């Protein structure tokens, strides 16, 4: 097992982070379209997408069975499965892997729930360090307007209702998003997250993201890297 910072692959791992409603998924999707048009092999990896672990996570959430510790562990199980299955193999093949949320989401959420910062960082030592990690910074009232305006129902854990701060789910969501935002802000320096001002136009943000990613592409192959070894 290689630990954070030790992996070396021909491919690149680009990840986006930010609170709900920061517009990060839109930006990642636009980035992917551009990279494909440029001829690169692109692979998308979504948060919470491991089918095997998903059933357990969903049941735990639906029945409110998760404590801060088991919430943290089940999400680490999911990300480990994604990394072993969907991130490392494409990186070895020379793909640009685009991940919507990564370990920093876990750090922000779990620490907001009261898990020790050191513990959750140790837990995710198996993770591949991203080539570039973008953090879409947005004022809370802007993101809340986007989310609460567009969506019918907030979910229990998503709103941080398990923290029992208030009975009002919308108020709990506001408070919880604020706590997560604070954790992200603390991580900017610790992990060298690249801050993108998410109040600017979509086009301006995308141009900035592309110009930063472009600098990493010099040695990225446009075809699969297959080392068949000695004859």
């Amino acid at each position: 097992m290689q630990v954070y910072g030790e992996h070396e692959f021909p491919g690149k791992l680009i990840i986006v982070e930010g609170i709900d409603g920061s517009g990060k998924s839109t930006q990642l999707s636009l980035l992917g379209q551009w990279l494909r048009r440029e001829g690169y092999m692109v692979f998308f990896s979504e948060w919470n997408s491991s089918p095997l672990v998903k059933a357990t996570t969903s049941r735990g959430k639906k029945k409110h069975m998760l404590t801060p510790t088991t919430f943290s562990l089940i999400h680490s199980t999911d990300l480990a499965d994604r990394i072993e299955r969907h991130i490392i193999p494409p990186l070895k093949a020379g793909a640009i892997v685009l991940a919507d949320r990564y370990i920093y989401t876990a750090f922000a959420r779990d620490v907001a729930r009261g898990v020790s910062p050191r513990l959750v960082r140790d837990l995710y030592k198996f993770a591949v360090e991203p080539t570039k990690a973008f953090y879409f910074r947005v004022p809370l009232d802007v993101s809340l307007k986007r989310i609460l305006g567009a969506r019918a129902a907030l979910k229990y854990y998503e709103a941080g209702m398990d923290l029992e701060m208030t009975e009002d789910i919308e108020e709990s969501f506001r408070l919880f998003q604020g706590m997560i935002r604070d954790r992200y802000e603390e991580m900017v320096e610790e992990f060298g997250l690249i801050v993108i001002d998410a109040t600017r136009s979509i086009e301006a943000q995308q141009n900035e993201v592309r110009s930063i990613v472009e600098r990493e592409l010099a040695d990225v192959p446009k075809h699969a890297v297959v080392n068949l070894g000695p004859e």
Partner: protein
Amino acid sequence: MQHRPKHKFEFYGEGLPGIDLGELQGRLIVIEGPDGIGRSTQIGMLKSWLESNGHAVLDTGLTRSELAGMGIEQAKEGHTLGPIALALFYATDLADRLENEMIPALRAGFIVLTDRYIYSLIARAIVRGAEPEWIKSVYGLALKPDAIFYLRANVNHLIPRVLRSPAGFDYWESGMDLHLGDDRFDSFVEYQTRMLAVFDSMAEQYGFNVIDATRSIDLMYKDLQRRIGRLLRGI
């Protein structure tokens, strides 16, 4: 029930949040050892004996959590989870059982008998390539038991036991996911040999009480009874 000396639990690492260790009254006893060594037979006998002496007993074991037990079994059915994900799935299962079963039982003064604990999980992960320090730090969430009885026997002793069960050489107990041999027998021998080596290397660090499991069921039981009796008297 006899009155017990003052007792204090500890976690291996940072532990679980929101637990007052001073409240835990019971005793946590671990039975570890390889597949087919007779752990569940011993646990069944010990439970009856302890209960007939007036102790309340909770018995538990791997993958029995309400949260993650089913998911792990399904994942193992399909043989599709990677080694790190599987290790963390087991950690989720253990944390769920600690928080919802074992700690509440200890708080109520039960004797908790667990069929395997973090040591099997650490050994399985290490044999599958996990970094030892990493997987040990993950289990910093676990309570230190009052006693760990490690039922130990060499691989030659395990084979006749496996052959006595109708299932024979099980996929996971033979470490088939590691591709160690041409068939389940070869793989079983290699896998169990590696597991034994990791277990032996942990014996001192974690303070295992090694129980010679090449003896008869009855002799092993007498030995365990004697040691647990002594533990409960606080000697």
